[in-house]
């Protein structure tokens, strides 16, 4: 991982090259560097981090979604970047709300993001604008709702344990 100073330097270079509004903050937590990015400039930032002379981040390891339910904006999309040259990782994060979950796609930069973005769409309902084939990938095509969101019902059937027995209907009632 780049240390806290390295992360600030990366953020500074991104601000210079891509634009001041692209970076919304940096988080360095438990030796894990996270670069917070505004949703519209995700693609530009990733292109800069891949192609610029001084930046070694040339592999996209995964795209995944997170639901930070009490916080707003709720949904987070993480792009996990890897540099084999420095044996180092950088996490690029962007936050969108559930009312307008739109992020530009990075499939043209990293073809591996194709299925990852479809999975984030399937589980969290984030729409990646410009994606060639924005369909569900895991759940059935006619499934309604986005099951990994925190306000999605658990599903299944209520199971009776001793602690929740008074709350649930008993089988003999």
């Amino acid at each position: 991982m780049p240390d806290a100073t390295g992360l600030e330097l990366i953020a500074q270079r991104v601000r210079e090259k891509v634009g001041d509004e692209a970076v919304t903050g940096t988080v360095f937590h438990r030796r894990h560097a996270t670069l917070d990015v505004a949703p519209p400039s995700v693609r530009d930032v990733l292109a800069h981090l891949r192609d610029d002379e001084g930046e070694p981040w040339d592999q996209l390891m995964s795209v995944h979604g997170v639901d930070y339910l009490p916080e707003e904006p709720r949904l987070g999309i993480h792009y996990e970047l890897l540099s084999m040259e420095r044996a180092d990782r950088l996490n690029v994060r962007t936050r969108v709300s559930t009312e307008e979950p739109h992020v530009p796609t990075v499939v043209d930069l990293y073809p591996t993001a194709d299925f990852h973005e479809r999975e984030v769409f399937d589980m969290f309902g984030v729409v990646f604008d410009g994606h060639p084939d924005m369909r569900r990938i895991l759940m059935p095509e006619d499934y309604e709702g986005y099951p990994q969101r925190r306000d999605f019902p658990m599903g299944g059937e209520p199971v009776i344990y001793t602690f929740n027995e008074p709350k649930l209907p008993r089988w003999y009632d």
Partner: protein
Amino acid sequence: MEVTRTKVEGDLRVRQLKAQQLLRGELEGEDLEREVEQRLLFTRFEVAQNWARKNALFPLGFGLACCAIEMITVIGSPRNDLSRFGAEVTRFSPRQADLLILSGRVSIKMAPIIRRLYDQMLEPKWVIAMGACSSTAGMFNNYAVVQGADKFMPVDVYVPGCPPRPEALIYGIMKLQDKIMGNPGMGWRERYRAEGTEEIA
């Protein structure tokens, strides 16, 4: 089917000779009576048919999840050797199989496919729900897994376990054979004298 065996007197040579005479029609009287009594087996046609069915169960070669490993061990390996009980020949087409072993969890995306496989199998057909997941969804109490395979298809025998040991599956198949013969084990109903109290759907 009750088979009572009586000891046949005389040594092999004598019996062979008697059989030849019986076929040629040379035996008469008391000799003929005794020979026929020793060589014939009386039963009902349905019983004989069921006996043939139970000893020639063809399982569908079909695995769903981790229980499939145990199922393959039962069906395919010489260690457990299911052919001792006459249920060994795996068929990979539902048209030729008559036993479907649901080995693993059934996701809601897989359920219509399993239902179609079941509908394609020819009558008579039987289903074993193997393991906790296909019986009750086990620990997968969530949005992706069907809460018990009997929600969308009939199941004959449930084998508990996570996964069940191969011996448990063999025991389940033997229970199914009892059921095919028309005297299913009633389990706890027998123990608590609750036979005849089954719910009628």
